C-alpha cells in the first residue's frame, strides 16, 4: 500500500469514526459528570459542601485541560434528602443526561436506593462517606471508610492509649450505627470485654434532649473502670449532644467520646472550648500538615470565596475518587463503563495526608486511619495514626455471617460476595 492510500485510509477512518461518535453522543464535546447530592431537606447540611467540592474539582481539571482532550461538564441534580427521589434522579442522570460517572449519596439508605439503578443501566457511582460495610457492588466504588478503616482502629486506640475497659456505644437509630455497633460489640467481646461492660444506646434522628442519656453515661462511667463513649450519632443530633456533655461537665480526660460522624463541618456550629480532647476517627483532617493538603485548602477557600470554610473527610474521599476516575479513564482511553470498571482496579493516586491511595479489587480503597482530638479552634489535632495504609474490608471479619465472604471484581472471579467456605459466589447480600 502506498503512502497516498494510507493517508486516504486514515482520513476515511477518521471521518467514519467521527460520524459514529456524533451519532452516539449527539455532538457533545464534553464529558459529563453527574453530582447526586441533596441540596435541600435534612441532609443538605452535609451534602451541599460535597456538591461544591465536586464542582471545584471539575473546574480545576478543566483548567488543566480537561480529560481525553474534552472539557468536563458537571450535571447537578437535587434529590432533596428523599430516598426514592435519589433513584429517580440517578436514572435521569444516566439515561437522560448520559453522564459518564456519578459522584454522590451520603446516607446508606440513599445508596441502597440507587444501587439497582446503577446495576441496571450499567453506570458508575463514587460513594464518598464512611459506611457500615457489608456490601460490594460491581458499579460502585467506595471511597469512604469501611468499619475497619475507622471504627476498629479507634477502639484499638482507646484500649491501648487510654486503657478503656467500659464502653458506651451510642448511635442514631438507623442502619450505619446499628451495623457498626454490631461489629464493634463482636470485636470488643473478642478482645475480652465483658458484655456487662458494654452499654448500647440508640436515639431517633434529630434527637435534641440528651439530659437522660448523658446522665446515664455518667452513671455507667462511675463503676470504677475507665469508660469511653463510641458515638455513631449522626448529623443534627450532635450539637445538642456535645452541648449537654459540656454543660454536665463530662470532660475528655475522664470519659472521652470518640465520634465517627463528627468532622470539621459539624464542629463549625459549636463552641468547642469545653470539648477539647474529645476524639474523632477519620482518614483525613483539615489540620493534616502536607503540601498537597495546604494546596487543596487554599483552592477550596479561593473557590468558595470564604476564608472560614472548612474541609472534611468526605471531601477528601471525593478528591481521591475523582482523581482515580480521571486516571482510569485516561488508562482506558474511553469513558465506556466496562472499560473504566476494569481500569479502576489498581489505580493509585496521592491522597491529602501525604501518601497514596489505591483502588482494591473489592472496590474499596487503602487509607491511613487518623485519630484526632478536638481543639478549641474547632479543628482536630492528630494524636495517633496507623503506621501504614489500611485496606478497606467490605465484609467484616467479626460478624458470623459475613466473615467467610470476600469481594473481588477482577476476572475471572468478578464477584461481590464470594464465600470462601463453600467456594461459591453468592451469599449474604446476593
Amino acid at each position: 500500500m502506498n503512502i497516498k492510500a494510507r493517508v486516504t485510509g486514515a482520513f476515511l477512518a477518521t471521518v467514519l469514526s467521527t460520524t459514529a461518535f456524533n451519532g452516539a453522543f449527539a455532538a457533545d464535546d464534553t464529558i459529563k459528570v453527574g453530582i447526586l447530592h441533596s441540596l435541600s431537606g435534612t441532609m443538605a447540611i452535609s451534602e451541599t459542601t460535597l456538591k461544591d467540592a465536586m464542582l471545584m474539582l471539575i473546574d480545576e481539571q478543566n483548567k488543566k485541560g480537561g480529560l481525553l482532550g474534552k472539557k468536563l461538564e458537571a450535571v447537578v441534580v437535587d434529590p432533596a434528602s428523599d430516598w426514592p427521589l435519589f433513584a429517580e434522579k440517578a436514572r435521569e442522570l444516566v439515561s437522560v443526561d448520559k453522564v459518564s460517572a456519578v459522584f454522590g449519596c451520603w446516607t446508606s439508605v440513599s445508596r441502597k436506593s440507587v444501587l439497582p439503578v446503577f446495576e441496571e443501566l450499567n453506570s458508575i457511582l463514587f460513594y464518598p462517606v464512611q459506611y457500615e460495610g457489608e456490601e460490594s457492588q460491581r458499579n460502585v466504588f467506595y471511597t469512604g471508610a469501611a468499619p475497619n478503616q475507622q471504627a476498629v482502629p479507634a477502639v484499638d486506640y482507646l484500649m491501648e492509649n487510654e486503657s478503656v475497659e467500659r464502653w458506651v456505644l451510642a448511635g442514631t437509630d438507623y442502619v450505619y450505627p446499628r451495623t457498626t455497633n454490631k461489629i464493634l460489640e463482636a470485636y470488643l467481646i473478642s478482645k475480652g470485654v465483658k458484655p456487662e461492660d458494654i452499654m448500647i444506646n440508640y436515639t431517633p434522628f434529630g434527637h435534641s434532649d440528651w439530659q437522660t442519656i448523658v446522665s446515664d453515661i455518667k452513671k455507667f462511667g462511675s463503676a470504677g473502670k475507665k469508660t469511653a463513649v463510641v458515638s455513631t450519632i449522626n448529623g443534627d443530633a450532635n450539637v445538642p449532644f456535645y452541648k449537654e456533655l459540656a454543660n454536665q461537665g463530662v470532660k475528655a480526660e475522664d470519659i472521652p467520646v470518640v465520634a465517627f460522624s463528627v468532622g470539621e463541618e459539624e464542629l463549625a456550629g459549636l463552641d468547642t472550648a469545653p470539648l477539647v480532647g474529645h476524639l474523632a476517627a477519620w482518614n483525613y483532617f483539615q489540620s493534616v500538615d502536607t503540601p498537597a493538603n495546604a494546596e487543596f485548602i487554599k483552592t477550596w477557600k479561593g473557590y468558595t470565596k470564604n476564608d472560614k470554610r472548612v474541609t472534611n473527610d468526605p471531601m477528601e474521599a471525593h478528591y481521591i475518587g475523582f482523581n482515580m476516575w480521571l486516571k482510569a479513564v485516561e488508562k482506558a482511553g474511553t469513558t465506556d463503563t466496562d472499560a473504566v470498571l476494569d481500569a479502576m482496579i489498581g489505580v493509585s493516586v496521592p491522597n491529602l495526608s501525604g501518601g497514596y491511595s489505591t483502588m482494591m479489587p473489592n472496590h474499596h480503597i487503602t487509607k491511613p486511619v487518623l485519630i484526632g482530638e478536638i481543639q478549641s479552634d474547632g479543628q482536630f489535632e492528630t494524636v495517633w495514626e496507623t503506621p501504614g495504609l489500611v485496606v478497606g474490608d467490605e465484609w467484616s471479619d467479626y460478624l458470623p455471617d459475613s466473615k467467610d465472604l470476600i469481594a473481588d471484581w477482577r476476572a475471572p472471579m468478578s464477584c461481590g460476595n464470594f464465600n470462601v467456605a463453600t467456594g461459591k459466589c453468592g451469599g449474604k447480600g446476593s
Partner: protein
Amino acid sequence: MYRILQTLLITLCLLVSAHVTGPRAADDLGALVSALGTAKLAELDDRIGALAKSGDPRVIPVLEALGEGNLYARKTDGGVFLTTEKGASLVLVDPLTGSAIGEAPKGELQKIKVNNAVRRAVRSALGGLTLFSADTGARLKAAQSMRQTPNADALEAIEAALAAEKDATVRKTLDEARAVTLLVSDRPDDDKRAAIKTLAESGGREALGVLTSALSSADASLKPDIEAALQRIEQAQVFWNAGQNVWYGLSLGSVLLLAAIGLAITFGVMGIINMAHGEMVMLGAYTTFLVQDVIRTSYPALFDWSLAIALPLAFLVTGVIGLAIERSVIRFLYGRPLETLLATWGISLILQQAVRSIFGPTNREVGNPSWMAGAFDVGGLTITWNRLWIIVFALAVFAALLFLLKRTSMGLRMRAVTQNRRMASSMGIRTPFVDALTFALGSGIAGMAGVALSQIDNVSPNLGQGYIIDSFMVVVFGGVGNLWGTLVGAFSLGILNKFLEPYAGAVLGKILVLVLIILFIQKKPRGLFALKGRAVEA
C-alpha cells in the same frame, strides 16, 4: 611542646567556659521546661512528673499553659514560651520569669502537642502543687483533682493540707480525697474502714465508682464493709434518680411549652393549622445568631447581654413576618382548614430554603452566655444553668401571655373575635385587624422561643421541623383553645417521656408517648382541658 601548650590552653578555655555556663545549666527548672519542647507525646508524662517534683510554684503557670495548649516551642532554637493569641501572631512570655518577650508569627512556633493522658497528668501535677495555695478556689480545685485521681504517694501531702485547712468546703473535699487515697494505699485495714465510712456518708457517683473499683482488690475482711457502703449509696441514688427524672421532665416540658405556646395562639385560639410555626422558631434562632455575630465582631464586651438584645428583636422580626403571612395568604383561607394546612406547609418550605440560601445549609454557631454555661449540684442532682433559665423563661412567657389575654383590652378583643366573630364585629371590633395582630403575636412568641432553643439545639434551617409535631401534640393533648391546658400538657408529656426513657430507650419512649396520646384522644377528643359552652359547639 607547642602542641602540648595548645592542648592545655584549650582545656583551660573549656574549663572556664564550663564554669561560666555552669550556673545556667544548674538551673534545672529551665532545662526541665525546655525539655517539654522536645518531648514526644509518650514522654511528656515523665517530664511533667519531673517538673511537679521540683515543687516550685513557678511551674504552675507552665503546666496550666501546657494543659490548655498555650505552650509553644520556637522552631529555630527550641525555646519554650507561654503564648496568647493576637491575630496571626503570638505574644510570647518567658515561662519562668513571666516577662514579655515580644510577638512572633505563628509559623515560627510549634505548639507542644498534648492529649488526654497528658492533660490528666497536668491535672494531677497541678493538684499536688496548688494544694497549699493561698487562693481558696485553687485549693478546692486541687482537692477535687486529688479526689478524682487517687495516688497513694500524695497521701501525706493531703493529710498535711487537711491539718492546715480552715475553709469548710475545701476541708470536706480534702477529707473525701484522703479517704479515696487511703483506699489505694497500704495503710492498716482500720484506717480503710474509716475511709469507707467517710465515702458512704459523702455519697454520690464518684464515691460509688471508687468503692466499686476498691471492692475487686480489697481484702476479704474489708469486703462486707464496702458492700454495705455501696448499698447505702445506691439506696440514696434511687431517690435522687427519681428527682433527676422529674427535673429532666420539667426541663423537656419547658422546651415543649416554649415551642407550643405560640401555636396555642395561632392554632389553639384562632384555629389556623399553622405548619410554618416551626420556621418562626427557626427564624428566632437565626436572629439570635445575627445578633451574636454583630456583637462578636463589634462589641465583644456585650456578649453576655446578647440574648436579652435578641429577644425583642426576634419577637419583632417573626411578628412582622407572621403579620405579612396572615395578610398575604391566611386571611383568604379562613374557614378552609385543609387549604390553610397546605398553604402554610408551602410557606414553611419556602422559608426553610430561603434561610438555606442566605445563611448556607450548615449549622451556625450560637454561644452560651457565661451565665448559661455549666452546672451546679443540689444534693445528688446535677442542674445545668441553661435548662434552669429556659424553665424560668418559659414560665415567664406563659405568665405574660396569660396576662395579655385575660387582663388587657387587646386580649379581650382577641377572645371576643375567636369566640364569636359576628357578635364581636357587631360590637365595633375590627375583626380583620385583630386576626392579623393575633397571628403576629403567636408568630412573635414562636420567635422568642427560638432565642431560647438556640441555646440547646443547633441553629440550622431544619431546626423548626423537629418541633412542629411536638408542638401540635402538646396543644391537642392539652386541649385546643386553653392556655392552661398547654402548660399542663407540656409538663406532663415532658415528665412522662423522661420516666419512660430510662426503661424503654429514647426511640421506644417517644413511640410509647405517641401511642398513649392517641389512646387519650380517643377517650377525650377535646384534650385535657376542653372548652365548654356554645362557642365550641358552633
